């Protein structure tokens, strides 16, 4: 189902600090579910692909995918300089997507910065199953907020927060989340920076909820063969393993990820080095 293709860029549109791109993806778009990502090859000078959440897929005209790019380093900068008609090599869909509830339960979706990208389509699919959906959109400041209008279109309520109060509520996404959780037992979905995912998982746990979190770890291959993208995750057997976020994620249950130990190998991880004197 996952395929590699030279995809023609259909549009590149700037939206504040982000860029929205779409490209033809014949045969790829069909398998898309929210939470999947795409790995894109950039210029010759950089050999590693760049990963992006798939924002949405359309099946018209052979299929197309949309992504949101925040230009940061050389690869993302190169990408946003592409023009319609240019070809980019893509591999998609990749990863394990968000799991949808089988019952029409209320849902709250939390997105930080460009992390809202996969949430629009998720919201639509949840609502199609009869789930009431609220979306919390957060960012450092008004500038870096993404997709508030779109969020309103696909949900029943939108809450906006910024760290500096320049738009919406002054504070963190966890403030409205806490209020929503206090008022009911929704399913929680989140995508955004690791710190936010940790906070969302912790607040959810306080209220007995488990958040599904789409993580972002540095990836060399995106397809499960290199072992660079790991983080400590507790398995069904209670054992912590260093787990690949590209194939076993990017979506994890928030109570399984040892958030505060991401970037370390916890001492009780399977196969952790034995403490040495040196």
């Amino acid at each position, binding site marked *: 189902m996952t395929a590699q293709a030279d995809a023609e860029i259909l549009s590149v549109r700037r939206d504040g600090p982000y860029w929205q791109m779409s490209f033809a993806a014949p045969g790829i778009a069909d398998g898309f579910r929210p939470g999947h990502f795409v790995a894109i090859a950039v210029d010759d000078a950089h*050999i*590693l692909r760049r990963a992006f959440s798939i924002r949405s897929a359309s099946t018209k005209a052979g299929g197309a995918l949309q992504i949101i790019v925040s230009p940061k380093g050389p690869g993302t900068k190169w990408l946003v300089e592409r023009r319609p008609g240019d070809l980019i090599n893509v591999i998609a869909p990749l990863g394990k997507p968000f799991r949808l509830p089988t019952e029409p339960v209320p849902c709250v979706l939390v997105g930080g910065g460009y992390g809202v990208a996969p949430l629009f389509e998720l919201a639509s699919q949840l609502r199609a199953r009869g789930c009431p959906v609220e979306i919390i959109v957060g960012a450092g400041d008004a500038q870096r907020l993404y997709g508030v209008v779109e969020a309103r279109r696909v949900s029943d309520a939108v809450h906006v927060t910024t760290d500096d109060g320049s738009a919406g509520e002054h504070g963190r996404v966890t403030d409205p989340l806490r209020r929503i959780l206090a008022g009911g037992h929704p399913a929680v979905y989140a995508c955004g920076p690791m710190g936010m995912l940790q906070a969302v998982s912790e607040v959810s746990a306080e209220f007995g909820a488990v958040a599904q979190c789409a993580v972002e*770890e540095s990836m060399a291959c995106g*397809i499960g063969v*290199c072992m660079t993208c790991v983080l400590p995750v507790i398995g069904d057997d209670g054992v912590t393993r*260093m787990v690949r976020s590209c194939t076993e994620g990017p979506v994890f249950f928030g109570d399984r990820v040892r958030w505060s130990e991401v970037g370390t*190998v916890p001492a009780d991880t399977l*196969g952790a080095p034995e403490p040495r004197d040196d």
Partner: protein
Amino acid sequence: MTDPRVTLGGVDFAGPAFTASGCAAAGRELAGFFDLTEIGGVVTKSIMLRPRSGRPTPRMVETPSGMLNSIGLQGPGIESFLENDLAWLTDHGVTAVVSIAGETVDEFAQLARILRNEPAVKAIEVNISCPNVESRGQVFACEVMSASSVIHQVRRNISSDVPIFAKLTPDVTSIAEIALACHNAGADGLSVMNTTLGMAIDPDTLRPILGGVTGGLSGPAIRPMAVRCVWQIHQVLPDVPILGMGGIANGEDALQFIAAGASAVSVGTMTFHDPSAPVRVQRELLGLLDERGFTTVADAVGIAHRGGLT
């Protein structure tokens, strides 16, 4: 058409291109991208006796035409490997070259004993480019004595039908000397080369980026170094098969290795760029060999030492 088959250490392989250890896991993830039975075989990620968590993240840094990694040999341990990974390869008819790694000479010996009863193991790659805990953490392949002991122990403990390839590090004063020692100790072939030690520092924090502080540099950046290593080893051991690797991205790159003295090649880092790189490289290589009139891969091996095409 050039015959794709190659013989390495007495064993026949379907083609001259392999995956590189640690760049294809145990093959399964690549099966969606190409037919694994078309290439020479899958060289599996170096496996150790026990499960191993590997190093903390970040485990990689992109560098000019290359990358650094400090995975730290993460893996499930030999038992789980046999049960899940090797079994999958066998079930799917994929040729398996099993890479093994240990922290002590004895661990290598134990791994060899465990593998001796596995008919699916076509060949063994002995990754002696990993740290030797018995000797100041220096890698085994840095020194003639430690490299030889490992190879000797693996050779003693495995059937003589199974060729063993010693995987060498370029980070030595004379790689030819280590190659000679490994061959004398019983290596049927040499895998050349592993990554070279490198490092990157974050310009903002001014701290090493990698969780492991230093890491292995791979990719096209190091290709000229790898071609040189193959050349130097073929010069002293012209009859010993070399599995050449280091930055191979296409058929022309692979051809350089063959001409320098490699009997076959592995494709590593470029698989991250293009998951079907191993089979693409193989097809391109065979096409180039054909254009140049070679009927077998073996005819081109080391030809640069013999004046090249005339």
